[in-house]
């Protein structure tokens, strides 16, 4: 595309003025007269039969309007849907009721809903509900859950295995038999809690007079929620309006359909009054989805000179008590397909067991499957380097897909769009001054100090596409995106996007794209999102897709506008459309630049419609649904440098360098911000965060006091740099940047710590590498 003014510029964000002055439109700010507040009574047991629910005390409290149990809603609300039906995996989708009937299966499973005049009364009344339980044995470990004698969550899910998914590419047995070097490991990729700063909530109002349901809710994908709400309530889609304009972070946790939104809608229909529900942080921690949680067995075949010839993975994925909306797809496709990483691994065998346990359901959390694959591969690279006494940078270089081989088809069947992996490695090595750093490491070791250098040379997949591929993977939806561009008579432009940014800044980046394409000032462009009555059907924001897929839809709709406007301008200028050029917001006759019409004049003429060319209709508005031809594959090299105190297990960060390649960049300031935040979350998995359960299924980290979200003092400064390898998949050449940091950073940090401890003979400790775990490993070695 033409080089233009705003593409590539760090334009200050247009969403910020309202957010820095306390004028955002978050769900809990919305007020309607006559609103009732809903509170949910949740199970304190991980696994129990419901013997009796006594709601009489709650009902008798002043201000309480109604109390519902699961039995009351069986005919009014269909079960919570699962929308990723992974094929050929013997998938079983157990019934998931918004309010449990007969049995509860995790701590936090809702058993009753109270609505009252205000939130204080509603919560008091929920406390007053008496539930008698027959407590059953619980299982939280997904591997133990598959073993004989384990407690069974469902009668129709034998051994708690909800699916067994496999992808066998090539002949692993032969690779294994011929391997000069073999490596066998068990890795734990532990459970995390997404922890968006805004918990989830909804304000639902069913107007009995019109039959319309309007729901404000914390959603990354309002149309998907509209469709699913329609399916569970029976209210036609045409009668449901979902609004989610400002959303306080999601990281995947605001994709799924949940009990709370469903209950608020169904109860509002029942009572004809607005129902507000807003979860507490403790509820968010027990009842909003968690992420990751794999136990992985890995066998690696390699040559003596460090080439991987095959990899076999068996993973037990903990799905939690029920199958959340996208849950089966995350540990299967999004994990298994990426097990070649940035490397020419010719043989890949993956078997994934999706296991139900008495824990909070898991689903897509930032990275979703790709961090689990990347951590595994990048640990393998370091272990192999150590086994072969090779430099971890060089073993990666040896296995890289060479840049001449793009587009490259992996053993798992993906076609990587473009890449130059060595360039990011070389740049990162230069930025950390690698040779010097290794010398320093030697010197410090001689003094009894433990410096470590960790690598992660990742590749990831963004903008999952095309829709036909989604269908083949069992995803119950398309993965395209929509945009409508409406030029008003004054020449001002409204853009209605199906993407739903909630921190990613597309109100700014999309406006940059449109201002460039149409040659209008950015202040003339408004980006509208998050309201199903205004935007075309959209798929939403997740999986680093919004620029690559949603942005392309915006550009394509804008180009349709230009085509039509060119015809109108040609007519006004009395020349053929082929003789008209468009630059910087002016249509002019080629060779006679003074004969011109501005974009605004043409927009006005389109609406006056006094004189239109033959066959051209009035108005200037176009819609485009963009279904990409392929995914995009950002990549890069992160290097982390730490010093570890073996006596205390304490880790100090010395340096963190990220060299990412996300293709062309529309707004570098925003991409840097995405990378910083992504690294913070991935680093936190490596050293801080861990959703811990006790054996009875109690979540021990159910508050922000116990779950270690990093504070400002717990993170180092990140040095961020980029190389640029555009993707051919979309007209911008942009790949996506929302998840690179999270995917890359966990293994970079873990590898650095293990590298630091290597003189002690330590070659692996399962993450999170807390001081206690490090100290114990060191003590064990020292005897």
């Amino acid at each position: 595309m033409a080089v233009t003014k705003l593409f590539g510029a760090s334009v200050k964000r247009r969403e910020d003025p309202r957010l820095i002055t306390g004028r955002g439109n978050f769900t809990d700010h919305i007020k309607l007269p006559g609103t009732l507040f809903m509170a949910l009574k949740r199970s304190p047991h991980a696994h129990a039969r419901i013997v009796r629910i006594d709601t009489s005390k709650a009902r008798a409290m002043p201000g309480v309007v109604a109390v519902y149990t699961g039995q009351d809603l069986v005919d009014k609300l269909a079960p919570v849907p699962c929308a990723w039906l992974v094929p050929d995996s013997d998938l079983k989708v157990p019934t998931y009721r918004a309010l449990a009937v007969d049995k509860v299966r995790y701590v936090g499973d809702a058993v009753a809903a109270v609505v009252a005049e205000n939130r204080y009364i509603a919560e008091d009344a929920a406390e007053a509900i008496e539930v008698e339980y027959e407590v059953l044995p619980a299982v939280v470990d997904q591997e133990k859950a598959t073993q004989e004698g384990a407690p069974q969550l469902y009668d129709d899910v034998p051994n708690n295995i909800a699916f067994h998914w496999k992808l066998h590419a090539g002949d692993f047995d032969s690779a294994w038999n011929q391997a000069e070097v073999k490596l066998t490991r068990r890795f734990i990729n532990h459970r995390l809690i997404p922890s968006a700063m805004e918990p989830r909530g909804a304000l639902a109002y069913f107007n009995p007079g019109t039959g319309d349901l309007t729901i404000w809710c914390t959603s990354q994908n309002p149309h998907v929620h509209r469709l699913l709400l329609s399916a569970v309530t029976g209210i036609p889609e045409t009668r449901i309006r979902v609004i989610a304009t400002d959303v306080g972070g999601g990281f995947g946790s605001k994709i799924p359909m949940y009990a709370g939104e469903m209950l608020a809608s169904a109860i509002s229909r029942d009572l004809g009054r607005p129902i507000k529900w807003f979860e507490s942080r403790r509820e968010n921690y027990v009842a909003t989805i968690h992420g990751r949680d794999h136990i992985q067995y890995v066998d690696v075949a390699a040559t003596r000179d460090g080439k991987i010839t095959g990899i076999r993975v068996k993973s037990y994925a903990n799905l939690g008590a029920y199958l959340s909306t996208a849950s089966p797809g995350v540990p299967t496709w999004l994990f298994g397909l990426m097990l070649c990483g940035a490397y020419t691994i010719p043989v890949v065998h993956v078997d994934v067991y999706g296991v139900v346990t008495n824990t909070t359901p898991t689903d897509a959390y930032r990275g979703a499957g790709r961090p689990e694959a990347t951590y595994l591969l990048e640990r393998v690279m370091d272990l192999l380097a150590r086994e072969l006494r090779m430099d971890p940078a060089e073993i990666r270089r040896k296995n890289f897909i060479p840049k001449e081989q793009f587009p490259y088809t992996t053993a798992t069947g993906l076609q990587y769009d473009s890449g130059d992996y060595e360039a990011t490695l070389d740049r990162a090595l230069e930025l950390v001054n690698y040779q010097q750093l290794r010398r320093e490491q030697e010197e410090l070791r001689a003094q009894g100090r433990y410096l470590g250098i960790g690598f992660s040379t990742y590749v990831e997949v963004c903008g999952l596409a095309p829709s036909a591929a989604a269908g083949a993977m069992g995803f119950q939806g398309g993965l395209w995106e929509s945009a409508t561009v409406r030029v008003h008579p004054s020449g001002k432009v409204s853009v209605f996007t199906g993407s739903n940014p909630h921190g990613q800044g597309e109100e700014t980046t999309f406006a940059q794209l449109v201002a460039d394409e149409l040659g209008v000032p950015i202040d003339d462009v408004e980006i509208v999102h998050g309201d199903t009555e205004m935007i075309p059907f959209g798929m939403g924001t997740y999986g680093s897709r919004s620029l690559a897929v949603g942005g392309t839809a915006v550009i394509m709709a804008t180009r349709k506008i230009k085509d039509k406007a060119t015809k109108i301008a040609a007519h006004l200028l009395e020349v053929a459309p082929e003789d008209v050029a468009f630059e910087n917001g002016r249509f002019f006759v080629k060779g006679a630049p003074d004969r011109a019409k501005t974009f605004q004049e043409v927009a006005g003429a389109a609406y006056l419609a006094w004189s239109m060319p033959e066959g051209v209709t009035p108005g200037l508005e176009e819609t485009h649904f963009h279904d990409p031809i392929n995914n995009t594959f950002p990549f890069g090299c992160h290097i982390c440098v730490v010093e570890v105190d073996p006596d205390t297990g304490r880790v100090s960060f010395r340096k963190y360098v990220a060299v990412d390649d996300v293709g062309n960049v529309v707004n570098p300031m925003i991409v840097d911000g995405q990378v910083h935040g992504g690294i913070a979350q991935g680093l936190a998995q490596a050293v801080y965060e861990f959703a811990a359960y006790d054996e009875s299924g109690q979540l021990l980290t159910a508050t922000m006091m116990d779950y270690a979200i990093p504070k400002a003092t717990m993170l180092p400064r990140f040095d961020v740099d980029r190389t640029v390898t555009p993707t051919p998949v979309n007209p911008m050449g942009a790949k996506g940047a929302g998840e690179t940091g999270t995917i890359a950073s966990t293994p970079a940090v873990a590898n650095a710590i293990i590298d630091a401890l290597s003189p002690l003979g330590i070659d692996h400790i399962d993450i999170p590498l807390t001081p206690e775990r490090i100290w114990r490993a060191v003590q064990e070695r020292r005897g």
Partner: protein
Amino acid sequence: MQITVKVNGVSHTHDVEPRMLLVHYLRDVLNLTGTHIGCDTSQCGACTILMNGKAVKSCTVFAVQADGAEITTIEGLARDGQLHPVQEGFWEMHGLQCGYCTPGMIMTAVDLLQRIPNPSEEQIRHYLEGNLCRCTGYQNIVRAVQYAAEKMRA
């Protein structure tokens, strides 16, 4: 109980339940929804306001404890259409993404710069320990506070 509170320069008198949290008073009674709620254990700091000039977490104060107090919320920080330098810093330095922690983060930073006009990076990070951000990794928040410090000293 009857309380009188001066919020952003305006005096309000209301009857409130003794157990009502100040953050609910601000949000639900005064409709000042710029002060956010992100947790229930006083960890996240999204509800931070200035009470008698000092940053406090309004989820940890009862409305009745604010009787007679002067309170500034995020809505009261800009004066005469002029952003406060801290607000300006957050905008200039991309110190926010989803914007949910931002009001509390800004109020804490205002308190910091009142006490330490020229803080080091370490002091900034230490002072912001009671405010959690899940989006930014804090790097640009630090820069936002540095920007404001410089601007306020000029």
